[in-house]
């Protein structure tokens, strides 16, 4: 029986702690001041993980803590607030690790009465956690071990009464692939940071939740009013170009010497019409998408060649739009798929480019098929694509031979060989076993000069956004507590967030500027990057979606929603200070784990050293070192090492390392 707690607004006030070694499950009450200091979601995870993971913990050992957290705004009547996060020490990078996913799992955590569920220890045999109506129990999962994520999810829903929400690993996580993620809603993946392997190492097959609790809010009418205002912007949908012409918008952006500050409303129109796939060709044309393991460009991947993945070509497969919980936009889709699977989630932009342009592959049917293979295996499509592109370049350079690959002709664009290689990676067979832990580990295993061809930051394969086009990406790939992350900031993201409209003291963006200004380092750019990091911690603490946040601060009322849901009266500046605190605590986590913070940066090729001689990014080099130092300075961290100073920690009220507030 659960004791009744005083009513909480917005958050549930409790977490569930599960020790898999001893099979002990207990609730922990989280004091209100923790929420006021760190919100919920990623902030709550940072608070618990920093406190509970000892220095030097093996990410795949019993000491690592794996948290599944919902967001403070999830279930409060806000929109775009269906993102849940999994967090732990990443086995891929050895740093703070988190991954984020939509679907219907996030509200399920809160409806069970918790803001987060945390796992320590290692179970003797495969188990899953089942929570329903105030009862939490570990159940045997031996019958599911080895089964793919979608099949497992369907079986788990059936055996727990038909109404559960499930987060589950596939064979990749079970086999401790360092590029594996956690799957929910039949093939959506919290993919990054290799946290599927942490779940696999704990022999935790799944988290199964059937929660029906009410989530109370302080001012429901106020929440609705704010949501209706936001929804009006989302539903504003003027006609746009046909999919086959969208690429030329990118061409225009490439050839002009000037750039317009990006308004997220334009991106929203694209997302609502096509999803992230709207950028499949446009990004290549404007220089945002890396081609041929980052050594190619739009010259190698011309519009005619990639026409098979143009937005309309992808949309042709879409049977119905897919909305995550509380999303009025619906950028996802359920697509028909030839073969045994029948359907798949619409491949995202990242997937299409990582397995397409990055490997010079334009076979759209096979990209759909690979998407479903990887989703079911629970393997990150970005890292898988990045690792395959690395392997192809190794093959091209003679570092890998046909003998090494088990007879596979690993040439650029050989879609058949790519499918066969992914099968091997999932099963960890032959060359697949070498590649299943990402390009950094693979390069070490292969030896020779393979390391120079691995395009990662701190071990994590880089996403499909080229920091030679927008240097802000390279900054965030390097300075975030989880390296190689594209969902936090860039110069273009800052333009879309439009934070200066509601937060005092932030730099404004000129509506039109010369492109060469992007490459000049300076305090203003550092302030923009720092603001993006802080804001995204608030967004991830609230459980909001990045794409919703792109609407702009006046159109998506993040701070007002937080106040209406909780009853707090915090200013936007105070929320940004919370974001700063979370960022600093994650950085302190990395310091505690003795990470060499300056090693978390992309390789020279990605920085334009030497610069490319053709294509959209020719002649461009990024002044990364200066930009990193300026960024650290914005947080009051040591400019050379990135270590938060005692003063910066104390100023944020992080006392004694938050060993219990």
């Amino acid at each position, binding site marked *: 029986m659960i004791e009744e707690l005083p009513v909480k607004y917005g958050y549930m006030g409790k977490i569930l702690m599960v020790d898999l070694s001893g099979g002990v499950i207990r609730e922990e009450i989280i004091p209100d001041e923790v929420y006021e200091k760190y919100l919920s979601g990623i902030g709550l995870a940072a608070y618990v993980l920093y406190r509970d993971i000892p220095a030097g913990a093996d990410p795949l050992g019993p000491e690592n803590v794996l948290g599944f957290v919902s967001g403070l705004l999830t279930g409060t009547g806000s929109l775009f607030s269906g993102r849940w996060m999994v967090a732990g020490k990443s086995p891929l990078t050895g740093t703070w690790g988190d991954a984020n996913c939509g679907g219907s799992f996030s509200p399920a955590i809160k*409806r069970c009465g918790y803001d987060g569920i945390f796992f320590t220890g290692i179970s003797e045999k495969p188990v899953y956690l089942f929570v329903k109506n105030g009862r939490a129990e570990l159940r045997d999962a031996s019958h599911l071990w080895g089964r793919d994520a979608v099949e497992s999810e369907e079986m788990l829903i059936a055996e727990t009464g038909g109404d559960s929400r499930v987060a589950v690993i596939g064979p990749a996580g079970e086999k401790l692939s360092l590029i594996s993620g956690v799957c929910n809603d039949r093939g959506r993946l919290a993919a990054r940071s290799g946290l599927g392997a942490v779940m696999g190492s704990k022999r935790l097959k799944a988290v199964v939740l059937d929660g029906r609790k009410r989530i109370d809010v302080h001012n429901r009418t106020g929440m*609705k009013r704010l949501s209706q205002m936001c929804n009006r912007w989302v539903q504003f949908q003027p006609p746009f170009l046909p999919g086959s012409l969208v690429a030329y918008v990118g061409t225009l952006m490439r050839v002009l010497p000037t750039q317009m500050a990006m308004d997220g409303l334009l991106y929203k129109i694209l997302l609502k019409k096509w999803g992230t796939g709207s950028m499949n060709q446009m990004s290549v044309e404007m220089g945002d998408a890396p081609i041929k393991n980052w050594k190619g460009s739009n010259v190698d991947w011309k519009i005619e060649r990639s026409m098979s993945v143009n937005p309309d070509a992808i949309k042709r497969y879409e049977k119905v739009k897919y909305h995550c919980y509380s999303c009025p936009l619906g950028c996802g889709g359920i697509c028909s798929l030839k073969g045994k699977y029948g359907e798949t989630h619409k491949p995202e932009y990242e997937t299409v480019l990582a397995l397409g342009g990055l490997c010079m592959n334009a076979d759209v049917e096979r990209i759909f098929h690979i998407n479903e293979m990887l989703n079911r295996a629970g393997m990150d499509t970005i890292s898988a694509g990045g690792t395959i592109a690395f392997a192809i370049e190794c093959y091209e350079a003679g570092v890998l031979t046909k003998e090494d690959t088990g007879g596979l002709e690993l040439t650029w664009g050989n879609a058949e060989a790519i499918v066969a290689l992914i099968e091997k990676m999932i099963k960890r067979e032959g060359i697949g076993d070498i590649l299943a832990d990402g390009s950094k580990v693979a390069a070490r295993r292969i030896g020779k000069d393979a390391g120079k061809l691995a395009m990662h930051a701190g071990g994590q394969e880089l996403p499909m956004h080229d920091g030679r086009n927008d240097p802000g990406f390279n900054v965030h790939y390097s300075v975030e507590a989880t390296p190689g992350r594209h969902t936090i900031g860039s110069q273009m993201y800052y333009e879309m967030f439009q934070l200066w409209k509601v937060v005092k003291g932030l730099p404004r963006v000129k509506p039109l500027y010369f492109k060469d200004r992007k490459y000049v380092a300076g305090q203003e750019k550092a302030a923009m990057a720092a603001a993006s990091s802080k804001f995204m911690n608030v967004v991830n603490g609230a459980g909001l979606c990045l794409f919703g946040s792109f609407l702009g601060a006046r159109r998506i009322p993040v701070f007002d929603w937080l106040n209406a849901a909780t009853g707090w009266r915090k200013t936007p500046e105070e929320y940004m200070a919370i974001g700063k605190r979370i960022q600093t605590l994650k950085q302190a986590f990395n310091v505690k784990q003795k990470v060499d913070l300056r090693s978390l940066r992309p390789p020279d090729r990605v920085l334009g050293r030497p610069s490319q001689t053709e294509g959209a990014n020719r002649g461009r080099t990024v002044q990364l070192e200066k930009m990193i130092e300026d960024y650290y300075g914005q947080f009051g961290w040591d400019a050379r090492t990135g270590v938060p100073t005692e003063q910066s920690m104390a100023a944020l009220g992080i006392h004694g390392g938050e060993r219990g507030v």
Partner: protein
Amino acid sequence: MAYRITDTCNGCGACRRLCPVEAIRGEKNMLHVIDRGLCIECGVCGRVCPVASVKDSFGIVCSLVKKSEWERPRIDTKTCMSCMICIDACPVHCLALSEAAGPDDPHGYPYLEKEKACIGCGFCARECPVDAIAMIGG
């Protein structure tokens, strides 16, 4: 806040059988109790109690309503944005998402899939951010 069963309860078990969160315990013909930690205040116990033994969170005695007269959600798909909030809010999972509405509208919309399972709690309508759901009496 939670509902409460008074000592006039005759132990018929009608409320226990319908409670969506298994918050009600009691032997047949014995006084039943509601677990305050589990109760979500959906009110179905009060609507089915034949002897007026359930008090709501404000201490008001609930009155019996015939099941055919319970309110049911009516969803205005023109206002609906397919955000899935109502489907998640329903404690008995009686709402489902339809297939795509048609060639010009690729969205699915929520509909009352299991009408008999609906307990008329109105949580779907309460949580809908754009007020696209109205609760209509039977």
